[in-house]
């Protein structure tokens, strides 16, 4: 293991100080003189034709400067693929989910905008709605989009090998129905944006976006302006987790259009209830899973039939349904696989991406089914996973699944051994099993997640490294830190590669007028791909510095060493000068030189075919093994989660503090979606629309968490890194449900596993002590 100066050190986050003193500015903190406030008016029906929109009364309210409705966007719609651009900024002919936006007001203050919205009159023709995805797919259901008369938003049919034959030859086959919950990202910072449409033909926006460049393209298309005239200036982001902040929402388009009409900057901020009822959420999916094994517990085949609840528009659905299916062939060897998936349109708010995108559904189903088969076969749960786990490929080799996913490192076996050896699992039989009404159980899981995601469209990251004359460094990238700590890691990569000190690196937040384009934060790609770009840019700048030193010292450039803030000729290490001095030498050479390094990511892009399921969307894959200990109150069903042990193969932890924090946070989100979160919906209406009733964990709900780094040093990541952001949100739900099984003897197949569901199940099995 190489000794690094910066990489692998427990350094403070680069933006920690701003955050603790309250100086970090988020979108809602931005304002401009003369700014107006925007409010979106929404439809009272889940499915209705819009007959007439009358904004005249709203326009008359003193202080109102502009009012818009769907028609003002001139027929613009957007979507993830060219063939799925079905979503308008505001509904035009039809409303397809309850509270879909239909109009918006800009006024001198927010309360005036709110009052004016009340006066907008819309005539609707209410239509019958359909809310359940399986029902939506049936003949005779209300049609939500004319271009998809059978309500099928996305449909895939994949087949690898021969599952029928493999099942026929299996010793045991199980078929189960699983369902994942209706859950949402749950970020604390609501979507907000401040926009100014300059009449000379440019737009400047300060939006809460973790993929600002997606929004940049949406605005260019919507307002028919060249990309060079769209300026997204990124504030700090208060949490992303995918979905909404990777996409655009009604408010984002409305503030720009209202600014265009009113000639003033316009701002919107969604209240939390608006977030919980209208913003993108994770797809909830029904998974009919069939799994076969030999008598020794070796996987023979899996057949998955998945129905995804897509909500009213397509959004990123095509990718979701691909990701949901692609990972069933890993992290356990699978020779035969069939996947049939439908994403159904329903009159619900739009389902989109969320952390652990796609994998959370099928890795849950498969891991639990594996546990059930282990029980039936009488095989130890760790043993069965070890028998099937893919081995870590030898250096220079790679493993390829039957659907074309390949990876060069796989630390699953090491991760499983690690958690199995920790006290939580190893000593579980010696730990207390019962205490009063509480029954304790320990569960285990072994899962995977994709890193360095690359799919369609522009996927490259760019970076520039600018050396200032005083030896400090500006790192300029289009990458977005939405809180996960990527700014810190990129600065560390730049420092390590350059040989400069971490404290001397300053990273500039995204400003699309200056920073290179970047897809943003999703698919755990920033450390890997923006990291590679940063590394290359730093190397480029370093080369220029080495040239300058070489000339000054009369040595060959490759004789120059730059490390930890010092430069010296390799043969004479005591002749060292500071990085600052080196910068001066380089910058003041001749008439003055500008030391600027540039790089862009270039990890090989493979083809993915969503329709056949073949191909590879990730640069590398992480592997996570986890144990969970919890206590179930057998009378009330209430669950106390006491401990997590998480062994995560993230290649190499570049910033150990962030890696731990991401694993901890992802695990708690996974815990939350496995046992607390669920939207209670009725005909498109959300009953629980506040943080009181959409339950996410508080400080008193979380277990003690131990994170173990499994190091596999992947060749396709800067300094060996792989993703470390999403693994634990995939590993936690199956481990938690396995633990509940250990405590209660019941296998739960529908998330979330609430106290009430536990009591009902115990009663059904005659096990309820009450």
């Amino acid at each position, binding site marked *: 293991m190489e000794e690094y100066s910066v990489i692998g050190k427990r350094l403070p986050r680069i933006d920690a100080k701003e955050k603790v003193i309250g100086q970090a500015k988020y979108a809602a903190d931005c304002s401009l003189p003369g700014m107006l406030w925007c409010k979106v008016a929404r439809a009272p029906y889940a499915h209705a034709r819009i007959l007439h929109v009358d904004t005249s009364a709203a326009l008359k309210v003193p202080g109102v400067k502009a009012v818009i409705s769907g028609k003002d966007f001139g027929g613009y719609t957007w979507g993830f693929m060219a063939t799925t651009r079905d979503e308008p900024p505001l509904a035009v002919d039809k409303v397809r989910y309850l509270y879909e936006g239909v109009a918006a007001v800009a006024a001198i203050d927010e*309360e005036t905008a*709110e009052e004016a919205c009340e006066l907008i009159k819309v005539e609707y023709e209410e239509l019958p709605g359909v809310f359940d995805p399986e029902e939506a797919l049936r003949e005779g259901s209300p049609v939500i989009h004319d271009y998809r008369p059978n309500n099928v938003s996305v449909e895939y049919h994949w087949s690898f090998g021969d599952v029928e034959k493999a099942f026929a030859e299996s010793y045991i086959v199980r078929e189960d129905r699983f369902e994942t919950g209706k859950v949402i990202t749950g970020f604390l910072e609501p979507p907000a944006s401040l926009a100014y449409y300059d009449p000379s033909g440019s737009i400047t926006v300060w939006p809460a976006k973790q993929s600002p460049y997606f929004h940049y393209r949406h605005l260019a298309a919507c307002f028919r302006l060249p990309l060079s005239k769209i300026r997204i200036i990124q504030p700090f982001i208060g949490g992303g987790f995918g979905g909404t902040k990777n996409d655009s929402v009604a408010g984002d388009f409305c503030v720009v259009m209202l600014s265009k009409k009113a000639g003033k900057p316009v701002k919107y901020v969604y209240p939390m209830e608006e977030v919980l*009822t209208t913003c993108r959420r994770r797809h909830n999916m029904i998974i009919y899973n069939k799994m076969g094994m030999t008598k020794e517990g070796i996987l023979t085949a899996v057949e998955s039939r998945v129905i995804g609840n897509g909500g009213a528009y397509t959004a990123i659905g095509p990718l979701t349904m691909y990701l949901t299916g692609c990972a069933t062939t890993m992290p356990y060897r699978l020779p035969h696989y069939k996947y049939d998936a439908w994403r159904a349109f329903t009159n619900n708010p739009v389902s989109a991406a969320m952390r652990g995108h796609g994998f959370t559904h099928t890795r849950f189903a498969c891991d639990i089914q594996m546990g059930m088969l282990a029980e039936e076969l009488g095989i130890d749960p760790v043993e069965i996973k070890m028998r099937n786990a893919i081995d870590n490929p030898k250096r220079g080799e790679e493993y390829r699944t039957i659907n074309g996913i390949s990876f060069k490192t796989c630390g699953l076996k090491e991760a499983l051994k690690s958690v199995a050896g920790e006290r939580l699992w190893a000593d579980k039989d010696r730990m207390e099993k019962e205490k009063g009404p509480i029954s304790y159980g320990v569960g285990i899981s072994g899962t995977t997640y994709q890193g360095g995601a690359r799919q369609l469209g522009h996927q490259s990251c760019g970076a520039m490294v600018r050396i200032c004359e005083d030896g400090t460094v500006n790192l300029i990238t289009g990458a977005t830190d939405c809180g996960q700590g990527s700014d810190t890691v990129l600065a560390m990569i730049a420092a390590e590669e350059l040989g400069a000190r971490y404290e001397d690196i300053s990273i500039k937040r995204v400003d699309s007028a200056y920073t290179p384009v970047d897809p943003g934060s999703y698919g755990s790609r920033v450390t890997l791909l923006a990291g590679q770009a940063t590394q290359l840019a730093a190397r480029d700048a370093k080369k220029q510095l080495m040239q300058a030193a070489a000339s000054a010292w009369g040595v060959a450039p490759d004789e120059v060493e730059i490390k930890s803030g010092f430069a010296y000729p390799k043969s004479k290490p005591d002749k060292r000068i500071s990085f600052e001095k080196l910068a001066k030498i380089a910058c003041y050479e001749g008439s003055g030189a500008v030391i600027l390094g540039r790089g862009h990511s270039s990890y090989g892009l493979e083809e993915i075919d969503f329709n056949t399921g073949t191909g590879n969307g990730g640069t590398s894959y992480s592997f996570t093994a986890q144990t969970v200990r919890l206590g179930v109150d057998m009378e009330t069903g209430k669950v106390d989660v006491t401990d997590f042990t998480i062994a995560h193969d993230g290649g190499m932890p570049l910033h150990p503090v962030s890696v731990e924090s991401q694993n901890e946070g992802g695990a708690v989100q996974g815990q939350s979606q496995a046992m607390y979160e669920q939207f209670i919906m009725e005909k498109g209406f959300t009953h629980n629309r506040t943080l009181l009733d959409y*339950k996410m964990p508080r400080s*008193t*709900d979380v277990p003690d968490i131990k994170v173990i780094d499994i190091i596999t040093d992947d060749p396709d990541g800067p300094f060996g890194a792989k993703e470390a952001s999403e693994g634990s949100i995939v590993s936690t739900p199956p481990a938690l449900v396995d633990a509940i099984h250990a405590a209660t003897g019941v296998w739960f197949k529908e998330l979330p596993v609430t*106290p009430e569901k536990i009591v009902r199940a115990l009663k059904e099995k005659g096990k309820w002590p009450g």
Partner: protein
Amino acid sequence: MPLFYRRLPRFEYVSPGTVDEAIAFISGHGEDAKLLAGGTDLVPQLKGREVKARYVVDLKAIPGLDAVSSNGTSVTIGALATISTIARSPLVNERLPLLVQAASVMASPQVRNRGTFVGNICSAVPSADSAPGLLALEARVHLLGPGGERIVAIDRFFTGPRTTVVARDEVALAIEVPLPPAVSRGVYLKLSPRHSMDLAVVGVAVHAVCDNGVCTRVRIGLGAVAPTPVRAPVAESLLEGRAITPELVDEAARHSVTQCSPIDDHRASQEYRCDMVYVMTRRALTQVLLEGGK
């Protein structure tokens, strides 16, 4: 036209200096005026447009309403005494620890620093955490209106979800809790999915005066399982004057279920709430009557 409000609606703010001024104002303005104490219930309701007000009448300038005091026979909790004040009061901790238990599971430190017990009962949410304990302690509510003062027993105070006997022109001044004998014991158990910030799915308070395994007085208060917080008198009479055994406790707990009429809502089903009334009442009774409680 549905929209999601972020700002409060326009209203006028009034800050009377005496109770009489407050009463005169609300008498004069009827439904248009709303009383403000901690604001932790009123402000969200105003924001959500669940409640309308042209005048918000802040009681906090009125002196003498924020104390927790004793006159030897009862403890008086003033209208403006915050949940934190109640939880920290040496008097309440010593003589009415059941109420400290209730206070400590309400919302958050931030809300407890502003919200009040009087406000909690006046908002009359069926799951109000202060209510079961106050019922078990047989508290009384002091109301003042243009016609004078009246005292209402807590078990007659609530009339339905979010409705009480407090008239349009009355102000609730204080909750008076008779001091129980020193040998009494009580407990408040709150069942909720998480460990913080939830409304009670079931809230059970038990308070009893016991001597040598026989209880001369047992009071059971139940929250979140009926349109209002309620007592469980049949269960209580089953236990009074009898030697307490686990079987008797179990029987009483089963009887408590019959006192309840919970609804199916998005927080819990009727079946679950009824089952939990049995479980939590049995636990509360066990703690207080069999194990010595607090």
